[in-house]
């Protein structure tokens, strides 16, 4: 892959990949690092794609897989979870017209599915392909995430019974 092609894809999809990674890791530094790793892999392996959309899907899938690896790592267990427990959030999450603070209280997989479904507008089938899960698993996860989010909305007073 040429540097020019790499730059073009980075310009198109870097933010999407970062958001997917952030949804999973809830940590800005890790998300940035994982995004870099995904593009690094794209650049160094020279993988070719028929369409840009397929390249984007590959990048997101690679980033999510790396997120999963990270969560299993010792460093993550020793440090990142502590940051999460301390409620570390970026300032942008706190805007009043944003569900982000509540979304970030959900489990990583739930956050990720919500992001891909509502923001990236992937279908359940496409998300299943990206995550390596069954369609029904994604469907259930999406449903549960929405249910949990609703509970949080009620708890926070955003939603009336």
């Amino acid at each position, binding site marked *: 892959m040429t*540097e020019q092609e*790499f*730059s073009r894809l*980075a*310009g198109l999809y*870097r*933010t999407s990949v*970062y*958001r997917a990674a*952030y*949804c999973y890791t809830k940590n*800005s*530094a890790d*998300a*940035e*690092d994982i*995004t*870099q790793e995904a*593009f*690094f892999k794209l*650049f*160094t392996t020279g993988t070719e794609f028929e369409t840009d959309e397929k390249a984007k899907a590959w990048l997101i899938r690679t980033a999510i897989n790396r997120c999963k*690896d990270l969560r*299993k*790592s*010792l*460093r993550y*267990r*020793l*440090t990142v979870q502590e940051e999460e427990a301390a409620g570390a959030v*970026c300032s*942008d*999450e706190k*805007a009043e*017209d*944003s*569900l*982000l603070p509540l*979304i970030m209280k959900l489990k990583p997989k739930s956050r990720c599915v*919500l*992001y891909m479904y*509502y*923001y990236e507008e992937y279908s*359940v089938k496409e998300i299943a392909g990206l995550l390596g899960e*069954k*369609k*029904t*698993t994604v*469907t*259930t996860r*999406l*449903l549960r995430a*929405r*249910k949990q*989010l*609703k509970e949080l909305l009620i708890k926070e007073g955003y*939603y009336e019974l």
Partner: protein
Amino acid sequence: MNYKKLFKTSFSRIIPPTDIDSFERSVLERTEKMEKRKVNRFKKPLVAVAAAAAALALGVTGAAAAGLIDFGEIFGGHIKTDEGYSANELLTCGQDISWRVSDEDYAIEVKGIAGSERDVLVSFEIVRKDGKPVSDFMQKLPEDGILESMDCCGNLYDGKERTYSIKDVKSYTWSPEIRLTDEGNISVYDHITAEEPISGYLVQHSGTSFYPKKDMDDFRRMEVEADIDRFEERVADDGTTYLVSDAPPSKSLSLDYDSILSLRLDWSIEFVYNPSEASLASKSISDEVKTVSIGLVSIDKETEDKEYFTQDCTVTESHFSCTGGNIMLAFDCSDEAYVHLNTQSGANPTALITADGREIPAYIQPIYGEHDGTTVYQMNEIRYSESIIEDLTVVDIREVTGIKINGVIYPLE
């Protein structure tokens, strides 16, 4: 505000911390560093092999390929699906098994039990006595003819009350996995791990109320893609909560609720775990082996820069039994960096080596680490599977002669 718009707005607030130019520069710098590192690596001894935790991606085939444990194979066909169970000589356990199902239409077929002194693997199937597939009484999606009930099984299993009781053993965990068999029945595979030995103890595994109606409702909701604000929560007769939407039900699902509700059943399995000699056999890495070459990753605490490298680590403890093992490694770590096992994929997967030369895939997973000055002592779990999420393989550890880590075979005794 429309919820979909609100989701969009919310996620759009996640902004990368660096600008695009810095990002591209960082990736390109990584590429350059990698090239330099490649050159440096070739100058060092013992570097001919890639990262050990490479171990983790197996492409290896062999006797222990991925897939649900074939208990039939393990137990040589000595499987009884009625009142009792007897295993073959390899992994004798689970004698005096009894099971109970309250629903007259359903039965539990115990497919097999195996384990070591701390692990028990149980596999059983929920079947209908009339021989019809359980899935026929669940959900099908007529539009494409694909059976979609497997995840429902998972849901109803998750949703029901279930317990394990291991007499006199204080701390244990279990990880259930639900599958739909080719015959359309519910296959349950459980792995119980106890911190203390469970040999000879009574293990009771019970669950109540397979109650899929809620799941069917949920799936109906999903079919119409109702927004979250159209849901309301209701409480079922059994006290569980479920979501209801005012959206019209999907025509693509034709559900016979009476049939589905008939799947409700209470069940339990009790067995005395009496492991055989083979089950209790264990081996360790030979005392003559002082170090193993293993892939590590160092993460700078300040910059979070990572460096992947291979290092000789001191083996302070190791233990291998028929269902898994562990290995305690000690390695140096500067105060400026975190160092831990490299769990990324690589070219040299870990594997057990048998006397006849077979390779059984294994997976190394860090459990915890302790600092002692500049040395890290890290306990790593070794599972006989392709990855942490794959099924486990039961092996006769007496036939295993070594373990291959990072391309090097270390003898087991």
